[in-house]
């Protein structure tokens, strides 16, 4: 029993991170139907920026918690700028292009960002300064740490805030209008360019937040860390129904828990025939099965033909 609880905690933490990153994908997709493949790299840049800023401030003698906050803010700002720049330079000129064109651009940007990061931060793995005191908890035989609690709490609050933003503010209304029909929205006086830029900027800020949390959880960062994380988060977004904010959150958490339980129990379930070497398959198989029965994800609305 304690094992099941531990696995669920493991999955919940991992899933919260997926969820935060998935929001970035789903916001952009919901509004303009674009898979921003470079979003994982934005998360990576966020992590690395916060390492550099916080690390050098700590070295300069600043208290760790303050430096951590400074690192977080710097990384959020840097990623917002990056997200804005990506949209402005790479995606905006392609708005009327064939559907796959922005996808290739995104892949190209992803390669560019990775290699730039490699030039700036080098090829080695970097260690993330520990901002938080190490506090361990034990609950019914399961162990967890302060940072894990913080990750789950921060993710949940952020998502709540985002929902408020989308459903209770003017910008949110403009976003929903643009997602429904850009042409009509613009006739109603919505500045489409601003709304799309805002989606990129907000998504990137969430990405930065996720990056800092990934960094402080695993205390390690690398210029290629964004790729796998982005892929998993994207899977989570599709699982929940891409374009749907609540779906992305639930998809993320669900994927995290599926992976943890999959890795933990696949051996017992298959009588030792399959082991944890198939844990990545688990996520994809669940995805395929879900999509077979609900072709637009768990919580996705039936959207029109985007194919």
């Amino acid at each position, binding site marked *: 029993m304690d*094992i099941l609880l*531990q*696995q669920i905690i*493991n*999955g919940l*933490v*991992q899933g919260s991170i997926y969820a935060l990153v998935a929001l970035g994908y789903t916001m952009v997709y919901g509004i303009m139907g674009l898979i921003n493949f470079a979003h994982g790299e934005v998360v990576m840049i966020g992590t690395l920026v916060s390492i550099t800023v916080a690390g050098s401030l700590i070295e300069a003698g600043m208290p760790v918690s303050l430096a951590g906050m400074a690192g977080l803010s710097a990384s959020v700002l840097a990623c917002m700028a990056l997200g804005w720049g990506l949209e402005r330079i790479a995606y905006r000129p392609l708005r009327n292009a064939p559907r796959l064109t922005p996808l290739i651009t995104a892949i190209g940007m992803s390669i560019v960002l990775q*290699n730039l990061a*490699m030039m700036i931060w*080098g*090829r*080695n*793995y970097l*260690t993330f300064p520990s901002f938080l005191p190490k506090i*361990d908890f*034990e609950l019914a035989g399961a*162990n967890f*740490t302060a940072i894990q609690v913080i990750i789950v709490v921060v993710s949940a609050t952020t998502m709540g805030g985002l929902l408020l933003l989308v459903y209770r503010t003017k910008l949110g209304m403009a976003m929903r209008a643009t997602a429904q029909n850009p042409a009509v929205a613009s006739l109603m006086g919505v500045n489409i360019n601003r709304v799309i830029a805002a989606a990129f900027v907000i998504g990137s800020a969430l990405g930065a937040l996720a990056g800092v949390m*990934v960094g402080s959880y*695993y*205390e*390690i960062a*690398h210029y*290629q*860390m964004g*790729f*796998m994380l982005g892929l998993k988060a994207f899977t989570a977004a599709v699982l929940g129904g891409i374009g749907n904010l609540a779906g992305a959150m639930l998809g993320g958490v669900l994927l995290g828990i599926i*992976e*943890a*339980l*999959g*890795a*933990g129990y696949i*051996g017992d379930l298959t009588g030792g025939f399959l*082991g*944890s*070497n198939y*844990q*990545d398959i688990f996520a994809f198989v669940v995805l395929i099965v879900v999509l077979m029965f609900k072709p637009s994800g768990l919580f996705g609305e039936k959207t029109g033909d985007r194919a």
Partner: protein
Amino acid sequence: MRAKPSLVALSVAAAFALSACGQHDDAPKSVAAPGTPVAKPEIVVKLGHVAPMTGPQAHLGKDNENGAVLAIEELNAKGMEIGGAKVKFELLAEDDAADPKQGAIVAQKLVDAKVNGVIGHLNSGTTIPASKLYADAGIPQISGSATNPKYTQQGFATAFRVMANDVQQGKSLGEFAVKQGIKTVAIVDDRTAYGQGLADEFRKAVEAAGLKVVATEYTTDKATDFKAILTKIKSTKAELVFFGGMDAQGGPLAKQMKELGIKAKFLGGDGVCTPEFMKLGGEATEGQYCSLPGMPLEKLAKGPAFREKFTKKFGGEIQLYAPYVYDAVMVMADSMKRADSVEPAKFLPAIGKTKYDGVTALIEFDQFGDLKGGAISIYQYKGGKLEYVETLGGSPVDLAQGDAKTDVKEMEKVGADAVKNVAEATKAAVEKK
């Protein structure tokens, strides 16, 4: 006497760039540039070096290349004579991105450039397909880091390695676990050729000794989260967790073991015997074990001097395989000297008969081209340092405890000469232009 490292790096880089530039005209240059007057004929010996310079293992690739650069500079500074001519070594450094397809292309490029020998590649995955091309062209290849047993078992006369293979290492690690009096072990591997090979050999060794493998779990070489598999391992109450994989996963794995309150010891191979492991694992690495082929640098006569030279020149710690790559270059040069020829066909047989007292070991090859008797040393992380525990297997290595100080001084002189040499070469080349 101390040259600024940045200057050194710059001039070295420039020298390479120029030499790379020169390779476009296909004719093998067997004489020095016409502008420089030389008393003796000079032969240029081209050595290829291949390792990933891009991708997740780029840091190890650069480390390997640095080892080769150091060796070549020293050889040139020392001035070797073969067949009555002065020999100038040149390094052709290539990137295979740890991708087998790239590995084959790069290998072909080196074959075209008519290199006299190849040092590398880093990964077994690229070394194996490339070794066929080198074998077909009759070019000797010495890898300092490809540990997959298959590399030398393909029956190519040109394939050598100066490092114990996975079979030798996995076996010794198993022996060590048995000696520790451990009864139950959990095995984790990263599903790469290296990690899986090592874990399999370890399993064979411990099972043969009657230990119980209570859990076998897997991860990938890109993973950062190991909590799910570790939770499962925790429930089996294994006394030891063996990890077949690299430092980038091993460090976080050790850390997450601690976070989950797992009391078991951690044991891994050479992939986790790195400064990187300690950096990434933090406090959780305290008391954990890992192994390295050969003997510890500190225990070897030439070890400390090598470390000092290396850190002085490149301004950073040795990552992992640099000393082995350094030795690989030296073995190649030594074989040429003994055969008194730089022709691959002529000095290839001499490589098989190598008996070279290198930095990492007394290097001799068996009939496959594997390191003879490959000793494996076990280390423990203590107080942020690797502490030597014991050496298993292998033939006794020459442990000449010579006066290390004079050794270092001499090396420093050699190093300084090398710098001067490269600077001169660069200048000459620029003038030629």
